[in-house]
């Protein structure tokens, strides 16, 4: 009886240990398989990230170079505009083309934000006529390319109108008259015989 009990207890213990080992083997092997998949996935990630790093490496330098070039262009254009048109007219031109942009001001001219920008319409006389006199094929040069430079910025719009090949601004003595309309008009646009004739009388009905 005692021997049987000892053997039984030993068998149960061995069975328990075997079960524990089997559980360890199953879960650890499964974990190893999962970790190998993770390892393979991380290899792909590292490869992709490496490509990203390699491809994006020159971006900083290139973008900085482009920005510096564009900064230089902005400097040139702002300087030229302010030099040629003056600060007030320059802001007026900017406001005319991009409403609201004058409030932001020019980058290289901090005081430009506080300038009271004038309203400048489609025709800006200062410089435009100079270009016209230089032989540009601008319509503004069609009438008097040899005329004086327009300096009156306040009345520039009216003055510039004189440059166009129109006749009304010259206040001619006689302009073509407007057509006369009505029954007495010399030219009747609707030729009908019954116009001006007595009204037809229809026989009275009973």
């Amino acid at each position, binding site marked *: 009886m005692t021997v049987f009990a000892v053997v039984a207890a030993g068998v*149960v213990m061995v069975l328990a240990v075997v079960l524990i080992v089997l559980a360890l083997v199953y879960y650890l092997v499964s974990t190893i398989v999962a970790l190998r998949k993770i390892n393979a996935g991380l290899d792909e990630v590292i*490869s992709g990230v490496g490509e990203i790093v390699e491809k994006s490496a020159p971006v900083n330098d290139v973008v900085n170079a482009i920005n510096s070039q564009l900064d230089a262009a902005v400097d040139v254009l702002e300087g030229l505009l302010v030099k040629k048109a003056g600060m007030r007219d320059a802001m007026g031109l900017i406001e005319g083309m991009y409403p609201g942009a004058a409030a932001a001001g020019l980058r290289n001219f901090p005081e430009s934000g506080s300038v009271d920008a004038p309203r400048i319409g489609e025709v800006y006389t200062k410089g435009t006529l100079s270009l016209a006199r230089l032989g540009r094929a601008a319509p503004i040069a069609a009438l008097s390319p040899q005329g004086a430079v327009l300096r009156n910025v306040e009345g520039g719009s009216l003055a510039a109108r004189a440059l166009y090949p129109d006749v009304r601004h010259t206040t001619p003595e006689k302009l073509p008259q407007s057509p006369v309309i009505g029954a007495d008009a010399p030219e009747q646009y609707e030729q009908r015989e019954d116009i001006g004739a007595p009204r037809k009388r229809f026989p009275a009905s009973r």
Partner: protein
Amino acid sequence: MTLWWIGNALLLLVVLPIVVYLLNGVLQSARSIVPSVQGIATVAAAGSRDLDAVALLLTTKDQVEQTVAGLAGYGTSLDVILDDAERQS
């Protein structure tokens, strides 16, 4: 003998479930990482493909340089031309 049986019972009823529980937790955690890593790998590959056009930035840079050089030349010429025209008037 009694202690032996108690030990056996502890092995089967306590130690084995705890081992299974802990190992199962580790396995589930490891398995849950796999799809995430695969998703990251896909995104990284797509991001790498998206950056294929970065090489064109060098062309953009060259063109910007040429444009700005032309702009500077044009601005300088315009400056001189307008000065001359105003002097002549």
